[in-house]
Structure formats: structure tokens, C-alpha cells
């Protein structure tokens, strides 16, 4: 598969570091400020009145250099490595796919992403969305956490009211999530995920028995970690754990994204 070195063709750049924002720098009151008014990303994480860390805010998964061998539509755009590959931090011997999963994964790689859900205007799903290149917004209440993802303009509900996971749940892209606090970590248990979804851009597959455990940690005001465990014995011999990091996307906000609005690419897929 071909890749290219995008930087060699740049002659000038009129797009500066202080790029326009759709939101004209609306000041996010939920994040501490420095004496000069800038978001203080290193300040202690805010807490809610019940004493738990407050995960609320707009977050953007951190980008990484594009690995060698990966082609992207938007050249030179840093991508979260776990968006591309959930096993990016693991040695090959630490990842053992079951035979059918290995065959499907290889088939998806050979197809160059043509059959990916996103390429066909279907949602990205959980946990792919938490490592995606677009921001998301967390709204935290004592008994319900809502995550609004810009990608696909989808929502996710995480119930903290003590309810049990649904038996034989209706399969869906966001799954069915319940959560509880473990100290300063919000532990989220998600099941009911349709096997139609991919775990990353490479196409790591899963079964509909997939269980995703996410541990949300707000390290400080500006930094969020999501330790994600993929527990799916039907597809992986051992659970896969990786940690996605995100930075507060302060003074910005979500836009909408409807893939079906003006999709003109798929007729050209080959």
C-alpha cells in the first residue's frame, strides 16, 4: 500500500496558528483560568457538588504523528493512534485474534477501508468514537453522564443510577452503558454493541458479545484519560487494554456532522 510524504509540496501557508473558530472564542466558564485569562489546563480537576471529579466539558482526543504506511485523506493531520489501531501500544505477540477474526481483519485491510462503516455513512460506534479525531462533549449529572460526539452527531448515555446491564440487549452502535465511581475514576461497562461496528480505522473486528470497560480519569483540568479494555473472547484470546488521552477543547464547541448530507465519495470507491 502506498503512502506519501506530504510536507514536501508546501510552499506557503496562510492558515496561521490562531485560526478562526466557528464559536468566536466563547469563554468556557467551567475550566480554571490563568491570570492572563487562558485556560489553565494544569489546574486541579474540578469536582461536582457530590465530590466526584467533574468530567464535563468539550474534549479532543490527542493526535499522534501519522505512522509510516498509513494514508490519510487529510495529509499531515495528527491522528490519535488508537483511532487508527487499538493495538498500537502492544507487541504483536500480545494480540491474538481468533481465526475468523484474523481472516476478517485481513480482508478489511485488503479492501482499503471501502467496507468500513464510516465510508458507508454508518456510525463509528463505541469505543472507536472516544479515540476519534473530532471532539466530543461530556455532560455529567449525578445519575447520568451524556456524551455528545461530533462525529456522526450521535449521543451516548451512561446510567449511574444503579441499574443493571440489560439482558440480551438490542444491539446498537453506542451499546448500553452503565457506570459507577471507583474513587476518582468513572468505570463504564458497555455491552450490546453491534458486530457491524469496527473498533478502529484498520478494522479490528468484534463479536456482539463484546464487553467494553472504560475507566475515565480526569487527571487535571485539561487532561482526560480513558483506559479502555476490549473483552471479547470470541475475537481476541486475551483482553486488549489501551489508554486514550484527550485534552480540554476549551473555548470551542461541537459542530454537527451528518454524513448523508452531501456524500459523494462512495461512487468512486475502487
Amino acid at each position, binding site marked *: *500500500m*502506498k*503512502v*506519501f*510524504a*506530504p510536507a*514536501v*509540496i*508546501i*510552499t*506557503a*501557508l*496562510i*492558515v*496561521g*496558528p490562531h*485560526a*478562526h*473558530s*466557528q464559536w468566536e472564542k466563547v469563554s468556557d466558564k467551567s475550566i480554571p483560568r490563568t491570570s492572563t485569562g487562558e485556560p489553565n489546563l494544569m489546574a486541579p480537576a474540578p469536582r461536582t457538588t457530590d465530590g466526584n471529579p467533574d468530567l464535563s466539558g468539550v474534549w*479532543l482526543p490527542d*493526535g499522534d504523528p501519522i*505512522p*509510516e*504506511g*498509513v*494514508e*490519510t*485523506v*487529510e*495529509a*499531515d*493531520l495528527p491522528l490519535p493512534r488508537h483511532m*487508527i*489501531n487499538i493495538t498500537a501500544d502492544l507487541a504483536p505477540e500480545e494480540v491474538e485474534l481468533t481465526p475468523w477474526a484474523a481472516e476478517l481483519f485481513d480482508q478489511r*485491510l485488503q479492501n*482499503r*477501508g*471501502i467496507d*468500513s462503516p*464510516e*465510508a458507508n*455513512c454508518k456510525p463509528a460506534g463505541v469505543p472507536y468514537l472516544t479515540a476519534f*479525531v*473530532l*471532539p466530543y462533549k461530556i455532560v455529567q449529572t449525578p445519575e447520568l453522564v451524556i456524551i455528545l460526539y461530533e462525529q456522526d452527531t450521535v449521543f451516548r448515555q451512561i446510567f449511574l443510577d444503579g441499574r443493571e446491564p440489560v439482558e440480551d440487549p438490542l444491539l446498537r452502535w453506542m451499546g448500553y452503558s452503565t457506570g459507577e465511581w471507583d474513587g476518582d475514576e468513572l468505570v463504564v461497562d458497555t455491552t450490546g454493541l453491534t458486530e457491524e461496528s469496527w473498533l478502529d*480505522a484498520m478494522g479490528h473486528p468484534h463479536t456482539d458479545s463484546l464487553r467494553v470497560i472504560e475507566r475515565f480519569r480526569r487527571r487535571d483540568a485539561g487532561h482526560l484519560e480513558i483506559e479502555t479494555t476490549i473483552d471479547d473472547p470470541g475475537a481476541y484470546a486475551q483482553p486488549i487494554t489501551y489508554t486514550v488521552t484527550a*485534552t480540554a477543547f476549551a473555548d*470551542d464547541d461541537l*459542530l454537527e*456532522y451528518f*454524513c448523508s*448530507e*452531501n*456524500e*459523494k*465519495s462512495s461512487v*468512486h*470507491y*475502487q
Partner: protein
Amino acid sequence: MKNHALVPIVIGLGFSLLASSGLAHHAFSAQFDAEKPIKLIGSVTSVEWRNPHTWFYIDVEDDSGNVSNWGWELASPNLLIRRGWTRSMMKVGDVVTVEGFHARDGSNTGNVRTVTFNATGQTVFTGSNAGRRGP
């Protein structure tokens, strides 16, 4: 305006086998060919600031005077606007030089890497983060 058809541009190409990457929508290699860099000059006929990809179209005239319309795919409006583009940056009638990659199916479409506004000589890179942390 005259355009010397499909002018290959000199660009560094690396080769390895790893993966295709999907972004907000599709993988590059699902639609475009990294071995087919192209450079076209034309006049903008329309601009579509809509998801999942921003598109603009240019009329390109070859040496024989034949005019063809080419569609160029950019990143999503969400990505572009956070990277410094504005909706009014490109207007119908602007003459631009576009460098990018041709569609695998041979249609008059391409994926953009740079756009130069010929009137000013200014070039925008469609994917650079330009020092910005956002998408």
C-alpha cells in the same frame, strides 16, 4: 485558462504495507491513488461547504481549448474551519492551482493537498494543523 492537462508533480512517495486509515469519512486509498499526483489550474465554479467532505469544482481548459469540470475533495467543513479556513475564503470565479491526487476510477475528481490562489500567490495546505492543536 490554459492548463497543461494532468501535470505530474514531483512529490516524495514512500512505500510500505500497513493500513488504510479512515478519518471522519473514508480512507484515502478507497478513492484516490497516491501514485497519481496531479496539478490543475482552473476557475472555481462552485464550492460546497457540507459534510462529510467539502468539495469545490473548477473549469479546466486544455491546450485544445476543451473545458472540463473537475471536482476536488477537501476535508470536512468541521476540520477545515478549525484549521483556519473560512467559508468565504474561496469564491466562484477565483483562479486556483490545485495539487492533489487523482481518483482511482479515473473520473474528474481528486483529493486536494494544496490550493494556490493565483491572484495573490497564497497557498493553503488543506490538511496541516498549522500549529493548532485542534482538528
